[in-house]
Each structure stands twice: as structure tokens, then as C-alpha cells.
């Protein structure tokens, strides 16, 4: 009974955070702000729901399956968000007027501008060595 109440609390909290992630993805005005909503709130909501399933497990094998889901989600969502954020930064996605980039990052941001050699583009044009 106590485990059911604990699982219900975790389910309600997880659903709330998932809802916040969805609302944030629609309402926020910039890709990095949207990513902030979807990855942080979304990861917390999914993790809380999976933990609620761990409370209701009746045997060790039933406990192990939510642990796998938990580990996969916790490990993979931040890596995927990092990759999408880096791709958006490099392809110069238009930002909100309020969003400011640090001046040190401008050279990195202008990496794809022609006539400006940099290590990244030159290494991308390097021919692939044959095995």
C-alpha cells in the first residue's frame, strides 16, 4: 500500500514534468531554450515515471527491466541533446534577439565562412586514407 502511494506520487510528478517539457517546447522562443526545456524537464519526468515502475516490481527480473530503461534514458538523452545543440550552433540557427553569444565564440561560430581557413574545415576536406 505504501509502495503504491509512493509510486502514485512519482507518477504524478513525472507526468507534471513531462507536461512542462511539452509546454516549454512550444512556448519558448529559441532553439537552445527549447532544448533546455525538452532535455532537462523531459529527462526528469521520464526518470520519475520509470522509478515509479521500479516501486511496483514484484520480483528481481521485473525490477531489472525498468533499471535498463532508466540507464538508457539517463545516458543517452544528454548525449543526443549535446549533439543537436552543437549541430545547431555550427549551422548558425537564427536566435532570439535577447540571446547573446560570448565574443570568444564568434570565431567558432563563423567557422563555415569562406576565405577563412580553420582547422575544422581543413580537416573535413582531408582525403580519407585508404586502408
Amino acid at each position: 500500500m505504501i509502495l503504491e502511494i509512493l509510486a502514485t506520487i512519482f507518477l504524478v510528478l513525472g507526468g507534471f514534468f513531462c507536461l512542462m517539457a511539452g509546454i516549454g517546447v512550444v512556448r519558448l522562443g529559441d532553439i537552445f531554450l527549447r532544448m533546455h526545456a525538452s532535455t532537462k524537464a523531459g529527462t526528469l519526468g521520464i526518470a520519475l515515471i520509470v522509478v515509479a515502475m521500479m516501486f511496483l516490481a514484484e520480483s528481481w527480473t521485473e525490477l531489472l527491466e525498468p533499471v535498463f530503461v532508466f540507464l538508457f534514458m539517463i545516458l543517452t538523452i544528454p548525449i543526443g541533446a549535446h549533439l543537436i545543440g552543437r549541430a545547431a550552433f555550427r549551422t548558425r540557427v537564427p536566435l532570439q534577439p535577447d540571446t547573446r553569444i560570448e565574443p570568444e565564440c564568434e570565431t567558432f561560430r563563423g567557422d563555415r565562412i569562406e576565405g577563412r581557413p580553420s582547422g575544422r574545415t581543413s580537416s573535413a576536406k582531408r582525403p580519407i586514407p585508404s586502408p
Partner: protein
Amino acid sequence: MTILGTETTGILDIGLEFCAFCILVALVCAAWRLILGPSLADRAVALDLISGLLVAFLVVFTLASGIRAYIYAAIAFALIGFLTTIAFARYIERTKGTELESHD
């Protein structure tokens, strides 16, 4: 009228119904951003959120229906969603980004 199709008897079933409702609303929001998103990276973010929310919904449906097969689908979907995100990120990084937006 229940979302998950099961009768609500205890406090756990009410929590499951609330959680399923919240996840469905979040899925609609993410789909709205997927349709509307001005750039390709916005759509990739929305797809990432949709894959995570689907995993959460599969977990909730496993608890509601008692069918253990759905948790294996959730485990598989977690890995597939990660591969999808990586593939989209590599694709976005290789395109210029500005050329695609001019066509939209």
C-alpha cells in the same frame, strides 16, 4: 471515459490516468513544434522529445495493462530513439542549415 482503457479502482489507477493525460498533452505540444519548427534543429529537438515521451508512455501502459511485453518495446525504443537523434544531428551538421530554411 479513461485514457488507458482500464477501470479506475485505486489511487494508483488515478495516478496512471493523470500521468497518461500529461504525456498525451506533451506529445501534442511536441508534434506542434515538429510541424511548426522554423529550422531543422527545432524539428530534431521535437523528435527527440517525442521519442522520450513515447518510452514514458510505454512504461505507463505496462503498469496499467499488466502486459510485460511493452517494457521490452520501451527498452528497444530508447535505443532506437538515441540512434535517430545521433543521425539527425550528423545530418544537420553536414548541411549548411541556411540553405534549407530558404526553401521552407
